[in-house]
């Protein structure tokens, strides 16, 4: 809840105004009975019509004042709460953008989604409610308590027992419920997660005709959510009958002691009635507490979940040096890398060097560490041992942003964002001109295809670019990377869905870009286009050299070559 305070501080004027206006409304409400007493005592009793009309008019005027205060309060309260909500969403989202991949493992997508939407909504509503009604209840309770003591302190002692008892119980329920609401939110995560997975893989689900299985998975997650919601709500709803029971009990006690008191002559009937009246008022105010308990315990759970994200430690520190014009000299020195939680090293003691403009192919079996190697360059991960250098400078010394703007990365899974093709290309470089875009599209061998689309460059591609084929997506991703005019181009098996002819043309076009290129591949045809080849096997650099050298020296390389080109191909070597 500390979190909420720190945000509300920014809107202290709106908060203050809202609270003040609530107070105005409350005052009017409390003054009303006094005015009606005036009308009766001074008007009707005295048979003075003008007094009746005057105070009636004052009452009407005050009603409008309260109304105006209430309407203005709506603006301030909603301003403070909605702005806090917006700010929180914005901060959480921005924070997530700085997450490392380790942190993404800690907070899965579905859970982050719930936090950005569902949890922040809870907080927003809590603020709004707090600024409008919550203040009234405690004020009414305290006011009535004071008045009760003022009227008849001996009888009011009954309240001195029940009210603290009640407060204690409510606080206990609130604490316990906060923990349970946290569980509820976790179950919301689970429901979200199941839904997200299912939607991502909907084709697979359909292809394998697994509707019943998927449904049962989702039904299970929903049932879990249902049962924990029921459990939690049942606990908090106990507070309402509890309030009734204790306060009504107090009335009985007051009646009992009151009767005795009146009999012995220590108290008057009027005093007893007045104290009972105050207890009834308190009960009314306290029943709002049941709602407050729900709202606050939910808010506490949500606030914790939001702070978790905002305060997540970033273990990958940003470097300090700007490096505006990298030449693209890449060096790995004894680099080892291990994914957290996985015993085996993904890369072991890798060393190699690439000169600016050189084209290196990284060849290896599935799981040999090719992708891990490429991802170390834009610092998606940091090596566990050894160091990676660019132009002779250690990567952790460079500003991440400055480093990444000079790297063109084309990941294995071609991912496009919802929007037009132009917008997707602009990811590469925002200020790029139309001509530049067309040029990279031509070089990526996708220009003709895009020309044929109904809206050309302005064609929208859907979620993950569904209406394009795998190969088309790959080439667009390459165009996007080329548009940055990178010093280093990383192609992570990015031509796998291309046919041989297109790939060949593409690789030829790439020659014109003066960048160091690292191509991860499993295809010999791609390897042949490289100046230098790294052969990885189980995370180790098994062999390196030019194609000819490897063909002479490496048995593994020969085997791969033969398997792809058959015996005839071997003859060519």
């Amino acid at each position, binding site marked *: 809840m500390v979190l909420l305070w720190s945000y509300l501080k920014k809107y202290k004027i709106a908060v203050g105004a809202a609270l003040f206006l609530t107070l105005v409304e409350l005052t009017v409400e409390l003054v009303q009975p006094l005015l009606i007493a005036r009308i009766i005592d001074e008007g009707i009793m005295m048979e003075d019509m003008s007094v009746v009309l005057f105070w009636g008019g004052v*009452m009407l005027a005050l009603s409008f004042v309260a109304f105006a205060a209430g309407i203005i309060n709506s603006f301030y309260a909603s*301003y403070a709460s909605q702005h806090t909500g*917006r700010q929180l969403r914005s901060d959480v989202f921005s924070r997530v953008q700085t997450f490392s991949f380790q942190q993404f493992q800690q907070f899965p997508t579905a859970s982050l989604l719930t936090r950005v939407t569902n949890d922040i909504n809870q907080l927003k509503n809590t603020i709004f409610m707090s600024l409008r009604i919550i203040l009234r209840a405690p004020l009414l309770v305290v006011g009535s308590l004071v008045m009760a003591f003022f009227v008849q302190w001996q009888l009011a002692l009954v309240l001195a027992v029940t009210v603290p008892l009640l407060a204690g119980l409510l606080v206990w329920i609130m604490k316990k419920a906060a923990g349970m609401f946290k569980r509820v939110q976790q179950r919301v995560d689970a429901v979200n997660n199941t839904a997200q997975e299912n939607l991502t893989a909907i084709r697979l689900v359909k292809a394998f005709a697994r509707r019943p299985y998927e449904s049962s998975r989702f039904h299970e997650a*929903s049932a879990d959510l249902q049962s924990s919601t029921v459990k939690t709500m049942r606990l908090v709803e106990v507070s309402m009958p509890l309030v009734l029971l204790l306060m009504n009990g107090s009335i009985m006690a007051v*009646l009992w002691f009151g009767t005795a008191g009146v009999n012995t002559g220590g108290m008057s009937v009027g005093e007893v009635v007045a104290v009972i009246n105050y207890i009834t008022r308190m009960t009314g105010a306290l029943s709002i507490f049941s709602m407050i308990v729900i709202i606050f315990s939910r808010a506490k759970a949500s606030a914790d979940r939001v702070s978790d994200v905002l305060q997540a430690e970033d273990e990958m520190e940003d470097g300090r040096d700007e490096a505006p014009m990298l030449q693209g000299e890449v060096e790995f020195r004894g680099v080892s890398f291990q994914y957290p939680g996985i015993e085996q090293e993904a890369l072991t003691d890798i060393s190699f060097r690439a000169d600016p403009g050189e084209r290196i192919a990284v060849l290896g079996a*599935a799981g040999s560490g090719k992708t891990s190697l490429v991802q170390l360059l834009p610092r*998606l991960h940091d090596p566990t041992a050894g160091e990676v250098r660019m132009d002779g400078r250690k990567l952790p010394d460079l500003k991440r942003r400055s480093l990444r703007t000079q790297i063109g990365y084309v990941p294995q899974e071609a991912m496009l964002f919802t929007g037009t093709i132009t917008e997707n290309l602009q990811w590469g470089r925002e200020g790029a001109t139309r001509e530049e875009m067309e040029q990279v599209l031509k070089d990526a061998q996708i220009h003709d295809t895009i020309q044929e689309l*109904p809206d050309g460059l302005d064609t929208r591609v859907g979620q993950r670019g569904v209406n394009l084929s795998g190969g088309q997506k790959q080439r667009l991703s390459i165009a996007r990377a080329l548009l940055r005019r990178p010093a280093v181009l990383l192609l992570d098996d990015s031509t796998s869905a291309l046919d041989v002819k297109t790939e060949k043309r593409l690789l030829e076009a790439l020659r014109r870009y003066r960048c160091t290129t690292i191509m991860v591949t499993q295809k010999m045809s791609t390897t042949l286009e490289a100046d230098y080849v790294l052969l990885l096997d189980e995370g180790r650099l098994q062999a390196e050299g030019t194609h000819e050298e490897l063909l002479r020296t490496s048995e593994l390389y020969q085997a791969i070559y033969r398997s792809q080109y058959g015996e005839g191909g071997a003859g060519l070597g």
Partner: protein
Amino acid sequence: MGNPWTDPFKQKRMEPAAAEEQADKKRAEDWKGTLGRIGRYLLKSRGKLSVVVLMIAVSSLMALAGPLIVGLSVDEFLVDGDLGMIGFVLAALAAVYLLHSLSVFLQHFWMIQVSQRTVYDIRTSLFDQLQQLPVAFFDKRRHGELMSRITNDVDNISNTLNSSIIQIVQSVLTLGGILIVMLYLSPLLTFITLTIVPAMVFGMKWITKRTAPLFKAQQKRLGEMTGYVQETMSGQRIIKSFSQEERVIRSFEERNAALFQAAFWAQTISGFIPKLMNMLNNVSFAVIAGFGGLLALNGMITIGVIVIFAEYARQFTRPLNDLANQVNVLLSAIAGAERVFSIIDEESERREGEEVRRLPGASIAFDHVTFAYEEETILHDVTFQAEEGQTVALVGPTGAGKTTTISLLARFYDPQEGTIRIGGSDIRSIDKEALRGQMAFVLQDSFLFEGTIRENIRYGRLNASDDAVLQAAADANADGFIRRLPDDYDTRIDAEGGGISQGQRQLLAIARALLADTDILILDEATSSIDTITELKIQEALQRLMKGRTSIVIAHRLNTIQAADQIIVMEQGGIVEKGSHVELMTEDGRYADLVKSQHESGSPATLSS
């Protein structure tokens, strides 16, 4: 940020008309229908619901009885100082109070169960419906947006059901009771008190006319924002490596601001409701005092009646106030519910006339099939046959329509012209799930679910034994890498699939397909990113698997499909050549070109460049 005092009033206007436009026009006015549908879900637990209503009646009665007994005891015993009877009265009072608390507890106890049960029903029927929607539906929507419906919109309904029903029933009951007492005391003053009702109705209309579309816009924008967040989360690798965080944050801010605007006005204007009620309440108080005073001066009523009436008028407006407040919550729930029902109403994939559950055979025939997607013709007049047990390979440049061809076979889409037959019958007569259930797929994106490796393979055939899973993994040559994982087959894969490479994913996808053991096999570029050593072994396994099965294979490495019974060369959505490898090589056409170009690129000559 400007002046903090005046800023709240200077927020960008959101005209109801603009908000209306945001909402789904078609169902803009159908809130009664939506409420009715929620009601139908609720009525599934009508037994418990009637107990809840009974408990509310009891608690309302007890709430009235308590003060009555207290008043009675004050008048009769306290004033007379009759200590003998007070014990008896207190015992009665204790019984009333206990019953009151108990009935309040029970009504909540059961209501929560009913409402959460209803929420569960709505949520799961939404999800089940999503499973039955055609693939084209998902092409056009962001996952996050759909997820927002499953959670945020359903959550809105949930919050309403938890509290509103009890509130509404209670208000209506109390209102009726108080009205009767008031009429009994003074019909004239009752009439005057009731004059606030039209004002209230008018005010509520003014407010809800504005808030209803605002709530809809709010839910819609929340969905859009969720969609955007979801997309950027799954695209983190790209955002990071392109250092596009600022750009992403900027476009997030646009959506965030849009949501803020709708939410601000929805909350502000709906916040008027209790204030309006309060004012009417106070006005009626003043009117009663004024008018009552007049009447009393003329001796038409006593002062006591005014006092009681003022108190009752308060009690009368309180349930009205509660009701009005619920209208608000209800509106926001309806906005959510409409978004949920609009999906449930989408036309599902299942159609009439798809009765055949068992494939009549395994031969596949495309007969003059033409398919267009959003006005763009993707396949044009495609005709070919695959006899039972044959392997047909589709080759051609990207965008030629190979993937579309198999999507049609799986009935992810239906062609506009021509027919596709399996075992001689039109696939449109076959139940979609049965059709797909009798084919095994290895698709372009090899997706892994959160769970263990074993569970992921078993997805191919849910009732497969452990041995069968191990066998399939071994046949797909996945056994080797799985054994090297920390917990081998029980290694958990998280949502991001960390530590499992793309190639390994494909091995698992192949194992999954092997386990499915069906008459028809469909492979889409599955072998393209697996290293050649492993691929050789997979080829073996696939050869074994293909024996006796009809297979449609899309692959780019031409030497891997030389053994196919038939090779179909596609270009720009049409078939340009078909025949066996030998036939096509002698024909010296497109296929021969492709094969040659692959060998050329492998020749040492290109290396010297």
